[in-house]
């Protein structure tokens, strides 16, 4: 019993043509009387450029035989009586597996599976080695491992082949034009597009100092400022948009579809961003006074006065804990001096607060991502005093910890061997031991004071980092959400296929079944794949355990480096 792939929309009799390698797949039916006519048509098509590209993907199409439909058939799927061409003896009855022929311009296609990367790595290793050592497997592995892909290409190009042949049949002398070109752009737009690209490329690659200096400054600033990073990634997106969708000649429909989806996905993200940004701008405009009042009242109170009170409290035996008076006084006065310095500059900035709000409003007109980026930067600027105090206290704490570790080794009679990176027993001189022990006791008694101040600033730094992290997460969320892919999955699942399956339906006359080829839509894990990756990186950097470990070991807490988020 041979099975033939039959297109589900073909119901007329005639000469059928298609491919017979690796399986018999009928691409269409020609209503001509003789086979030789069909042969000549196929040969003409095979010689054209379109035909050559098709042949490269699917193999050479041939005349397969002739088919006839009996007029009494009222089945839901066509059941032709097909007699194959000579050269193969087709005494076997044939069964049909129906597939749909999609037009290339509709961007629907079949695909064997999503392009997954790197799942099941460990399982892959085990299975590979077990397959290699499987001695009961006597047949050799199939060397034709891309027959699946060839068949999928055949199903996808069947409609194109039919259109080519019918065009040739209608107008035998004219050369075949490109059959469908979506998104044809007028020539003037192309010229402008080209000019924009050449200017941006020129700026990027120019050697002249006039352009190099701002771009160096830009690159330097983007390490610190989220606004600059955001502008850069948005500019890149817009540039990608301007490039538009290239028409891929002779359909690798998969490539065309993915380009289309990428283009519209970027467009949707940008437009979504702008719309929400403009709504936010209205909100900011209306509640401007309330927000400014709120900010002015609360921020100064919490960030400066409360902090000063806490420092004073720490200075005077906090909770009954007896700290070293001189060191504690030095610390608290030093930090209060730093805070006072910052407070003075804050006082001058506060006069410009209305202007700042106007800038924020202007930024939100460019999208809510710009607002988020600005808020990130403002958080950094307004918490600068805490950052400074934290850096000072973490340096002292870190040095103290290292000192304690080294002196502890001395106490036990050991030494850290830097060459071999291990702890070796070592003979110290008596005066070294004496000095070491004295230093150790000094440090041990001063340690609680340093620790207390460090804990204060570390907690403040952790809370700032968490606020910053949530803002960055929201920013990444807005920048990368695959809204278009989700909508496409809901609206037309055949345009984002994630695998094929055979659907078995009982036929209308009861006894038999029809087998049809269908597509699974792309699984959600693949649609959100990039998003999940980004989330994993963010969690890895801002994980609470990692933060706690860094606090305890005296390492500096920093925000996530730019290259992890903006790809």
């Amino acid at each position, binding site marked *: 019993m041979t099975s033939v792939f039959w297109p589900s929309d073909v119901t007329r009799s005639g000469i059928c043509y298609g491919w017979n390698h690796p399986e018999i797949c009928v691409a269409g039916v020609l209503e001509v009387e003789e086979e030789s006519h069909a042969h000549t048509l196929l040969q003409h098509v095979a010689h054209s450029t379109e035909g050559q590209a098709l042949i490269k993907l699917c193999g050479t199409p041939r005349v397969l035989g002739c088919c006839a439909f009996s007029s009494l058939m009222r089945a839901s799927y066509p059941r032709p009586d097909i007699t194959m061409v000579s050269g193969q003896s087709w005494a076997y009855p044939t069964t049909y597996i129906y597939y749909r022929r999609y037009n290339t311009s509709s961007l629907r296609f079949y695909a064997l599976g999503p392009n997954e990367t790197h799942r099941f790595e460990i399982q892959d290793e085990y299975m590979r080695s077990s397959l290699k050592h499987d001695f009961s497997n006597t047949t050799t592995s199939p060397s034709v491992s891309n027959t*699946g892909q060839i068949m999928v290409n055949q199903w996808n190009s069947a409609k194109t082949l039919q259109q080519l042949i019918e065009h040739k049949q209608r107008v035998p002398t004219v050369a075949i034009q490109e059959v469908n070109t979506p998104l044809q752009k007028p020539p003037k737009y192309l010229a402008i597009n080209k000019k924009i690209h050449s200017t941006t490329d020129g700026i990027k690659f120019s050697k002249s100092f006039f352009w190099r200096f701002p771009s160096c400054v830009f690159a330097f600033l983007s390490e610190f400022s989220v606004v600059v990073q955001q502008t850069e990634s948005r500019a890149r997106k817009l540039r990608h948009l301007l490039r538009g969708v290239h028409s891929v000649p002779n359909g690798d429909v998969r490539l065309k579809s993915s380009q289309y989806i990428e283009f519209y996905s970027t467009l949707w993200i940008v437009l979504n961003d702008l719309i929400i940004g403009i709504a936010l701008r209205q909100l900011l405009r209306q509640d401007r006074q309330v927000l400014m009042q709120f900010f002015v009242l609360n921020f100064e109170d919490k960030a400066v006065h409360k902090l000063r009170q806490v420092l004073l409290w720490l200075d005077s035996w906090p909770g009954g804990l007896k700290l070293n008076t001189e060191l504690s006084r030095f610390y608290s006065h030093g930090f209060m001096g730093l805070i006072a310095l910052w407070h003075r500059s804050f006082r001058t900035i506060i006069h410009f607060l209305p202007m700042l709000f106007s800038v924020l409003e202007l930024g939100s007109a460019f999208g809510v991502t710009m607002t988020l980026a600005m808020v990130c930067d403002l958080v950094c600027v307004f918490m600068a005093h805490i950052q400074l105090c934290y850096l000072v206290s973490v340096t002292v704490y870190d040095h103290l910890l290292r000192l304690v570790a080294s002196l502890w080794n001395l106490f036990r009679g050991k030494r850290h061997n830097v060459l071999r990176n291990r702890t070796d027993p070592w003979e110290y001189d008596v005066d070294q031991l004496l000095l070491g022990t004295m230093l150790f006791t000094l440090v041990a008694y001063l340690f609680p004071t340093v620790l207390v101040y460090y804990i204060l600033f570390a907690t403040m730094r952790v809370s700032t980092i968490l606020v910053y992290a949530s803002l960055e997460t929201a920013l990444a969320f807005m920048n990368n959400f695959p809204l278009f892919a989700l909508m496409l999955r809901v609206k037309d699942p055949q345009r984002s296929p994630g695998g094929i399956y055979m*659907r078995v339906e009982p036929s209308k006359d009861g006894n038999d079944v029809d087998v049809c080829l269908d597509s699974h839509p792309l699984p959600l894990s693949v649609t959100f794949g990039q998003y999940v990756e980004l989330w994993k990186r963010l969690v890895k950097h801002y994980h609470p355990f990692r933060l706690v470990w860094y606090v305890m070991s005296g390492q500096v807490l920093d925000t996530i480096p730019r290259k992890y988020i903006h790809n």
Partner: protein
Amino acid sequence: MQRTRPLPDIHPELSVTEWPSFREYRVENWRLARDGSGSIVPGATSWEWIDLCLPVVFSFIWSRVRGSIILCAFAVLAVAFITYCRCTQVLHESVLVFPTHGIQLETHRGYPLLKPLFVSRRFIHVSFLEDFIINEGLRRWNVRYYLAAVHRSSTDTIAIDVAFENILPYFPVLLEVYQGVQELMFHRPTNNAHIHI
């Protein structure tokens, strides 16, 4: 078109159907009791005694729930969850073998008295199928056998897909399916004399 039960005495839940273009090995979600009495132990039930307790419980809590919206929503969610559980029981699972095209693993779920509501299918093309094996799995102190299709994905990583994943039938059923698939897909008729279990 032609449906047989290859193991009618010990495992009548396995049925083999020969269609023109493929062969279907279907395992239904019930089995015979292991004590030899011949009674059927169902895997998917249409109703159980606990379903009768549901209206009783509901009538008790209705007076309390009627007041607040949150409790009402919670009660509705609970009822919806129970309905969902009842309607997605596994009815039968099958392996469809298309001789030159590939194999397809299917799971049909639904309410036991009606037609299947949800079907999940996984088609493995013959060019990706490396082997079809019976694997031994260790679960606590037991050894369970399961059928697995070893296939390579488009990125050339090897993965396995388990056939009859939810029902996990006993070994004689697996052997029958294994022999059928080996014969049809890989043209390796397995000789019965070599199987020692």
